[in-house]
């Protein structure tokens, strides 16, 4: 079972709730689920959608074509109908049938023009009705359900607007068509609207009415989740966390000992800070509070990084979280952390650049920037997580590595991960917390003592007397311009790059998936890993033996380890969401090879499993650089 559902509508019009209802429901049914959210940098009105994939095998990507399309408005239908497979399903409110597909004022003019010419080409009249006719001809089942009528019956006597529950109506219809028990829908509603009894009731009633309406309609059964056993699958799978990438990082940070977080609002990072703020208190099994992180919203990102550094100096595991524009402003602070060997963690969510760019869209184009940001030279660690589970675990590791090596660590994520929703197993509590060389200070304390292993024992502010400065300094941390001291301190800092490479486990440098012996090696990083790894079975069904190497440690670059895998391959292909092929660029630099093919995407949308298959096929057919263009 592998099912792809797209549900869309105007931003702020309930799409998000619709998607979360579907995700909750399928997850509760014991299925695996992965949902990708696409939305404009706009609060209300512009087209937004959730692409949700559910399967009985583990997944970390979406796939085309879609099986089901639910549209809250005509634009959604016009935008996504071509992504549907033959035999797929479309669901919408009958009441919008006479509306134009492309003439809403909120639609982007370029897109409207493009859609209109596509409609003309296919001979589709520019109305929902016109589209219905066409789709029927294509073998798509169209469910034009009188939702407005159904809802207005339910809402009679209340002053709730019909639009407010349209999402529940459409999702109920989809779940009903999938043959899911109403229980599951009830549960999803209850957990999503937890604490708001009135809303739960209304939505349940809407679900009732829709289930009633569709009681006789044709069903489209989901294997592992049918009939009476709907929730059994779930119990078999065991307790899981259902969360977005932002949540995963927030939880990971708290597990890792984060107690001070600073931030300035920015998409797609801000949700993480809000989550930490809301969690507020950490409990043990006896219900005792055993921790409570403090979150400060600062006046800008310059302050955010400065405050976080301040926190670190007091010995508190502190971090700040941002995306490109914010990171650009943190570069100066990062450099201070570099020269002062401050174990600062910056959580960096990439989004479409440059500048404000595409603030709510996906991208992996800040890799080289994160490695070279800052004037002068200093050691740093850049770790890129590939999925929600990694993101959570890496959040802990970033603190460990920062403190062990006393270097700033950049935890590199991306919008694709931040805003996609999936389940992860409840993490084992047995993760080490390693704080590195810590001392109490004492009289003649030297913060930057030159030691054999280049790490100076670290004392916290409050426990001793010590100095820090952004200037070059002597062992005490006092300004020093002496050329000999300069050289020693410079080397002390820079040689950590080698230490890091020596001491980090391979598992944190790169991860290998696929057959041990392979012809082709796909190189990838970050959230793109999901699609590439998900594609492995099908890739290996094409005759070639294909494996994947996901690089995680981006700086210092694990050239030797990566080279080992490259050595065993005939062809090397990189897959990533940027223009340059930034991972490929680094690999060419450090492994001194030519990457044979690059599969790239830079239209602001994540890479899906089918695109990996398609990209790989084209490389096999001789292209050296394939640009993927999927997604809306």
């Amino acid at each position, binding site marked *: 079972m592998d099912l792809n559902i797209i549900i869309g509508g105007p931003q702020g019009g309930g799409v998000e709730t619709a998607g979360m209802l579907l995700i909750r429901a399928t997850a509760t049914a014991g299925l695996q689920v992965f949902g990708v959210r696409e939305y404009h940098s706009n609060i209300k009105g512009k087209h937004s959608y959730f692409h949700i994939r559910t399967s009985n095998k583990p997944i970390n990507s979406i796939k085309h074509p879609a099986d089901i399309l639910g549209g809250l408005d005509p634009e959604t239908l016009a935008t996504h109908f071509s992504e549907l497979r033959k035999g797929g399903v479309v669901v919408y409110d009958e009441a919008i049938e006479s509306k134009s597909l492309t003439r809403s004022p909120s639609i982007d003019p370029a897109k409207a023009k493009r859609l209109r010419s596509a409609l003309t080409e296919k001979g589709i009249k520019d109305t929902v009705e016109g589209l219905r006719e066409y789709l029927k001809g294509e073998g798509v089942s169209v469910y034009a359900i009188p939702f407005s009528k159904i809802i207005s019956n339910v809402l009679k006597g209340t002053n709730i607007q019909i639009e407010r529950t349209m999402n529940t109506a459409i999702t109920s219809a989809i779940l009903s068509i999938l043959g899911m028990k109403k229980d599951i829908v009830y549960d999803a509603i209850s957990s999503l609207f937890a604490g708001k009894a009135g809303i739960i009731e209304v939505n349940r009633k809407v679900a009732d009415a829709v289930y009633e309406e569709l009681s006789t309609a044709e069903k489209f059964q989901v294997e592992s989740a049918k009939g009476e056993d709907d929730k059994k699958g779930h119990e078999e799978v065991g307790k899981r966390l259902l969360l977005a990438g932002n949540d995963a990082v927030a939880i990971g940070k708290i597990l890792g000992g984060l107690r001070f977080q600073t931030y300035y609002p920015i998409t797609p990072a801000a949700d993480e800070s809000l989550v930490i703020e809301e969690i507020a208190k950490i409990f043990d099994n006896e219900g005792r509070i055993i921790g409570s992180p*403090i979150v*400060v919203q600062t006046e800008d990102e310059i302050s955010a990084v400065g405050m976080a550094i301040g926190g670190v100096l007091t010995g508190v595991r502190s971090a700040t979280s941002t995306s490109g524009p914010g990171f650009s402003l943190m570069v100066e602070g990062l450099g201070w952390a570099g020269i002062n060997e401050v174990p600062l963690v910056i959580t960096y969510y990439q989004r479409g650049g440059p500048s404000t760019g595409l603030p709510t869209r996906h991208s992996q184009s800040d890799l080289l920037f994160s490695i070279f940001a800052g004037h002068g030279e200093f050691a740093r660690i850049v770790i890129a997580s590939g999925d929600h589970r990694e993101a959570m675990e890496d959040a802990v590791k970033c603190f460990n590595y920062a403190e062990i090596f006393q270097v700033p660590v950049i935890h590199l994520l991306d919008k694709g991960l931040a805003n996609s929703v999936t389940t992860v197993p409840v993490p084992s509590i047995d993760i080490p917390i390693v704080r590195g060389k810590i001392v109490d200070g004492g009289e003649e304390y030297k913060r930057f003592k030159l030691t054999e292993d280049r790490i100076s024992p670290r004392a916290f502010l409050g426990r001793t007397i010590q100095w820090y400065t952004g200037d070059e300094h002597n062992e005490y941390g006092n300004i020093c311009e002496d050329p000999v001291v300069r050289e020693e301190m410079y080397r002390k800092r820079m040689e950590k790059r080698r230490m890091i490479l020596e001491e980090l486990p391979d598992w944190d440098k790169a991860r290998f998936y696929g057959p041990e012996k392979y012809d082709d090696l796909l190189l990838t990083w970050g959230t793109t890993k999901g699609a590439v790894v998900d594609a492995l079975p099908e890739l290996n069904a094409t005759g070639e033996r294909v494996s994947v190497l996901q690089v995680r440690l981006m700086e210092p670059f694990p050239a030797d380890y990566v080279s080992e895998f490259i050595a065993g391959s005939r062809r090397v292909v990189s897959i990533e969401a940027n223009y340059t092929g930034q991972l490929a660029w680094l690999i060419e630099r450090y492994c001194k090879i030519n990457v044979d093919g690059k599969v790239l995407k830079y239209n602001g949308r994540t890479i899906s499993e089918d695109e990996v298959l398609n990209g790989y096929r084209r490389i096999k057919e001789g292209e050296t650089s394939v640009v993927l263009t999927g997604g809306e």
Partner: protein
Amino acid sequence: MAAEWSSDVWPDWCPGCGNFGILSALKLALSELRINKREFVIVSGIGCSGKIAHFVRTNGVHTLHGRAIPFASGIKVANPELKVVVHGGDGDLLGIGMGHFIALGRRNIDILVVIHNNGVYGLTKGQASPTLGKGVKTKGLAFPNITEPVNPILLGMMSGYTFLARGYAYSVEHLKDLLKAGLNHKGAGVLEVIQPCPTWNNVTTTEWVSNNTFYLKDWKPLVEKKEDLAQKMKEVLSMEYGDKRALGIILEDNTREVYQERVTKLNEIYDKYPPSKQKIESNGRILPISFEKTFEKYLI
């Protein structure tokens, strides 16, 4: 004894620099307040003034140009048991760092900000600082300054600082008292110090100071009740728009909650277990956290 507050680092200011007076006053104040050296932190910006962090025998965090306030705020919020003072130049705090200066007032974090006001960017060779008067031409300028000056006391007042004072670098005893008052005050404070820079500023000289300042005598800086604040502010405004700059404590307001109190109100744990006092591991492993209780809404 103030001498024990001297570090081993040679103060590399120009002979006659007002910073020497500030340094003396600070060491005297710390000594008289019997501050615990380990729990005191001087956070400074970049400029001649910022070097002061190296010259005192206590913790010194010499940060970035304009960024002492964020660093100090992070230190103080993460470990409220530390006593934190910020030292920076007028360019540092009121030019590049102006956004942070205003923000600190709004938060009323318990930090005293000492502004070394010499009217110039000393360390970069005498360009106009934000406090230099319009039309004034100091030695480093090609032409007279064309920008109006800011008044740090008034800006501080508008931003919510609860302690406002002005001193003069060469009035060491008086300045020492202001420092003591400022360090004793609970909340964000501004102490503007008129600091001669004999090298670049040939306008705001000692002579200028004696002609253009006066010591406050019968002035009542204390805001007794919340309601009195607006009235006090008006008086301060009048005074600051007078002919001469007042030296002394200009305003002190203990009616407004300090940041730490505000946080504690929302999160009572903060008072007893601020971040710096929280254990984050148990035998080298993460704490025995209950997922059900802590991350409930994510569990399915």
